[in-house]
């Protein structure tokens, strides 16, 4: 009996403490506003190595606190927002994901009067295909896909290198390719002159055939592994993003980077506010703050990708600002295409094409059914044999 009493008192105290601390916590929340920012990993100047801590600076200027978290892929961001499990005020997805979220009515229209710094964004980064009416997003960074090549293993001069080199038999077994369907198809689509956002299945089939022809020459389909494989000379050619060029060129002096003039894929990561944001006004203030050329320059210095603001560019080290890898000529940019969202059905079709390219064979539904039936038959045979054996025993 005593034990029980003691137990109840204990429970009472425990719940009291919990409730009390919760009330305290809630009260402290009221006095300060915290916005939830969701960005790519390693994608903001965070104060390491003497750089400016952008989020702290924002709190200093506005008194608004920032709860900063990161994601690894557009898809994981999408899943999180769609499930509604977490509420974010500012998110920074890429182009095609923004267009998908606009279509699914997941983003809030921005009040551009509250973002005066938007005037710094270059004209060429407004009203891009993913946000044609320019209502939902403010560009944060951008980049291009180009070709990394090992000068020791590739004879061609830099100006002669274009996407066709990835189909050159001379480099069989020395070529790396993207290991995701959209990026890999884009290379073939540019090569044979099809729109990256084509809605015709026949055009995707054409690109798939092109990639099938390339497959015997490809050493491996990889993503981040290209850093290792290129820097130790395992592979000679690899398409990848220009924002990572600095890292790779530093690791191995023999590596060069070309952005083919015929065209390439341009990607833009832009700031948006989800529909269910709890502090949309403060979120606008954050976006405005991030567009401040000084802050933008700090971020760009840290991230290594390119800035959509000329004003921010002018604050960078001239070596970086005049670097043709990060800020290529207008002609290159003019031919660059941006991804937009594709219908789900087409995406599923592209996925199956992609798997067929990589495995080199067509899938056959009957083969799968045959396997299932085979398994069940095997089970029955073993089962019956065992019964028989048991009987004879």
């Amino acid at each position, binding site marked *: 009996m005593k034990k029980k009493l003691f137990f109840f008192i204990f429970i009472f105290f425990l719940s009291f403490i919990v409730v009390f601390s919760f009330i305290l916590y809630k009260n402290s929340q009221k006095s300060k506003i915290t916005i939830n920012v969701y960005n790519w990993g390693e994608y903001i100047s965070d104060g390491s190595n003497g750089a400016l801590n952008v989020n702290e600076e924002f709190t200093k200027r506005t008194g608004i606190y920032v709860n900063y978290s990161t994601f*690894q*892929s*557009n*898809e*994981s961001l*999408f*899943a999180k927002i769609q499930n509604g499990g977490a509420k974010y005020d500012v998110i920074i997805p890429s182009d*095609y994901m923004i267009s998908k979220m606009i279509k699914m009515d997941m983003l809030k229209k921005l009040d551009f009067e509250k973002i005066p710094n938007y005037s710094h964004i270059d004209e060429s980064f407004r009203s891009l295909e993913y946000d044609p009416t320019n209502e939902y997003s403010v560009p944060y960074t951008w980049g291009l896909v180009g070709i990394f090549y090992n000068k020791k293993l590739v004879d061609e001069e830099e100006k002669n290198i274009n996407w066709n080199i990835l189909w050159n038999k001379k480099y069989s*077994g020395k070529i790396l*390719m993207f*290991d*995701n*369907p*959209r990026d890999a198809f884009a290379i073939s689509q540019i090569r044979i002159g099809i729109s990256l956002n084509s809605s015709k299945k026949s055009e995707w089939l054409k690109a798939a055939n092109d990639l099938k022809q390339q*497959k015997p020459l*490809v*050493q*491996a*389909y*990889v993503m981040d*592994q290209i850093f*290792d*494989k290129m820097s*130790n*000379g*395992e592979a000679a050619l690899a398409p990848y993003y220009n924002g990572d060029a600095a890292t790779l060129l530093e690791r191995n002096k023999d590596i060069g980077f070309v952005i083919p003039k015929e065209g390439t894929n341009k990607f833009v990561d832009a700031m948006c506010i989800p529909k269910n944001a709890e502090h949309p006004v403060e979120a606008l203030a954050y976006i405005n703050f991030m567009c401040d050329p000084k802050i933008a320059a700090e971020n760009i210095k840290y991230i290594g990708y390119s800035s959509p603001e000329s004003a921010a560019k002018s604050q960078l080290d001239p070596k970086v600002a005049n670097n043709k890898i990060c800020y290529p000529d207008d002609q290159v940019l003019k031919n660059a295409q941006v991804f937009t969202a594709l219908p*789900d059905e087409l*995406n*599923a079709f*592209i*996925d*199956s094409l992609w*798997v*067929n390219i*990589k*495995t*080199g*064979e*067509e*899938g*056959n*539904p*009957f*083969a*799968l*059914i045959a*396997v*299932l039936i085979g*398994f*069940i038959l*095997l*089970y029955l045979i*073993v*089962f019956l044999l*065992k019964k028989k054996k048991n009987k004879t*025993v």
Partner: protein
Amino acid sequence: MKIKNFSIVYILWMLIFTIIPMALIFIFAFTDKSGEFTLENFFYVGRYSNVFLRSIGLGAISTIVCLILGYPLAYIISKISVDKQNIVIMLIMLPMWINFLLRTYAWMTILENNGLLNRFLSILGVAPISFINTSGAVVLGMVYNFLPYMILPIYSAIAKIDKRIVEAAQDLGAGKCNVFLKVLLPLSLPGVISGITMVFVPAVSTFIISKMLGGGANILIGDLIEMQFLGSTYNPHLGSAISFVLMILIFISIGIMNQFDDSDEDLDEVGCK
């Protein structure tokens, strides 16, 4: 009474983390985006039959290789003195303490065309052989990673066998070969069965090994499922349907394996145990 109450915690745990997720996979597999019932997902799964065949094939090959490598080793370990046994078992477990990803990554550097193995071969004057980015490399990765799961259950099954039974067989005039075939092998069968299950199941559904050692072209079911959840398509319904088919396949194979696992019952009947 108290222990019974305590078991509720486990039941709750099972309910939240086993039953509900399974139910979710089931629901997702049979619905489309708008939440309506459909069998379309399974039609799409059919497109990937080649991936299923490859996964089952590679999984079966690595299971067999593990068995061929693991059984003799387990047998040898059970024969040495108990002190040494503990050391050897620890040595077998040791690689498992290192992160799975790191172990596979290490194989990448060994097998590459400019890797350690080929450098060694070039000293011997052998032309570079491409090991990496082949299905052989994927099998190697699976065998390396899952071998302990084969050795340990077989070892514990053999170690449990009463020495007197073996002696009795010898007394009755059985040769070495007969002792092994008629006594040791049947008695260690439960270990073999659980070893096979413990290797085959993770081998079929593994995903990172094929990516790192198979060069991305040796897609396995695990990669396919990953593509549905983290890839550009984001189709959890198809992903769940693929998982569901995989689950059925594994379920049946475990059923088949369990049919062989009857040595315990037989022994009870004979009265040996």
